[in-house]
């Protein structure tokens, strides 16, 4: 059997793979984080068998406060909806996480879906990151509304996105569908250009904000 090669959806964007020559004044740094494990977890947070099984595998409770994420050991668990979570892990450990979750949830009404190949993650960092995102989204990501620990799905430049605030007002991660990734990357390059955009070579690493998993931050909108 021939080996199947994995390719990032941004493989045609040379700068996304290799980086660019950074401008003199850098307002925003952009990096793709391809090949992460992206697992969609479905279940009822009111079902204690579900939450206990998840906590056992993930090492922390699934966040039940809307628009927040929790972090365990090498794993980010983000609230996507009342019955839906996005679990981000390192790519190489994905099969192990999947089988651990499926094993623990075998007798529970729940779903574990591997969406790693269907989407990619782009991180934006720097004093102008907020301004770049504000150009394409009606979502208010100012630290007073979206503190570290905030996450949500929304729209960016007409494309559906999932955004996670890793550091309030400074560092954001965007998960975008594979088919929109090339378009959104080009849009971000264009939108970031005026602030001084440094593109760093693609890095397949998971970034943790160092949050306490047990105490998700309160969002402005509350529970």
């Amino acid at each position, binding site marked *: 059997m021939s080996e199947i090669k994995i390719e990032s959806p941004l493989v045609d964007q040379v700068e996304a793979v290799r980086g660019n020559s950074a401008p003199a004044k850098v307002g925003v740094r952009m990096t793709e984080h391809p090949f992460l494990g992206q697992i969609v977890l479905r279940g009822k947070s009111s079902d204690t068998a579900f939450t206990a099984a998840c906590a056992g595998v993930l090492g922390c409770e699934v966040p039940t406060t809307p628009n927040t994420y929790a972090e365990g050991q090498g794993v980010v668990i983000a609230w996507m909806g009342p019955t839906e979570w996005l679990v981000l892990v390192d790519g190489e450990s994905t099969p192990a996480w999947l089988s651990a979750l499926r094993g623990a949830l075998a007798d529970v009404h729940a779903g574990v879906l591997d969406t790693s190949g269907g989407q990619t993650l782009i991180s934006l960092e720097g004093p102008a990151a907020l301004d770049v995102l504000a150009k394409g989204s009606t979502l208010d990501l100012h630290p007073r509304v979206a503190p570290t620990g905030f996450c949500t*799905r929304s729209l960016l430049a007409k494309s559906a996105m999932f955004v996670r605030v890793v550091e309030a007002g400074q560092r954001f991660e965007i998960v975008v569908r594979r088919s929109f990734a090339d378009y959104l990357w080009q849009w971000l390059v264009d939108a970031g250009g005026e602030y001084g955009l440094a593109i760093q070579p693609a890095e397949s690493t998971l970034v943790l904000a160092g949050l306490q998993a047990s105490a998700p931050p309160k969002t402005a909108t509350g529970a």
Partner: protein
Amino acid sequence: MFQIDCPWCGPRDQQEFAYAGEAAIKRPENPASLSDAEWADYLFMRTNPRGRHHEQWRHVHGCGQFFDVVRDTVTYRIESVDVPGRPALGDAS
């Protein structure tokens, strides 16, 4: 354009939402006993008020949930937002 206060996510721009028809449509308890006209009325006929309208929206580019909204169709002012299952307007509550 207006903002809708999602019961889960808080106020978001209208473009994140999709309209999902009139709310509080009750399925008849015994469909077999209905006449064709009554069944068609349940399936197809909707109110089209000038003023307060009880309707469903879905936060399609957010948490994905359906919920109920009471909105004025003239002024677009949203009177209330609620999780699904609220009694129909005019019903004794």
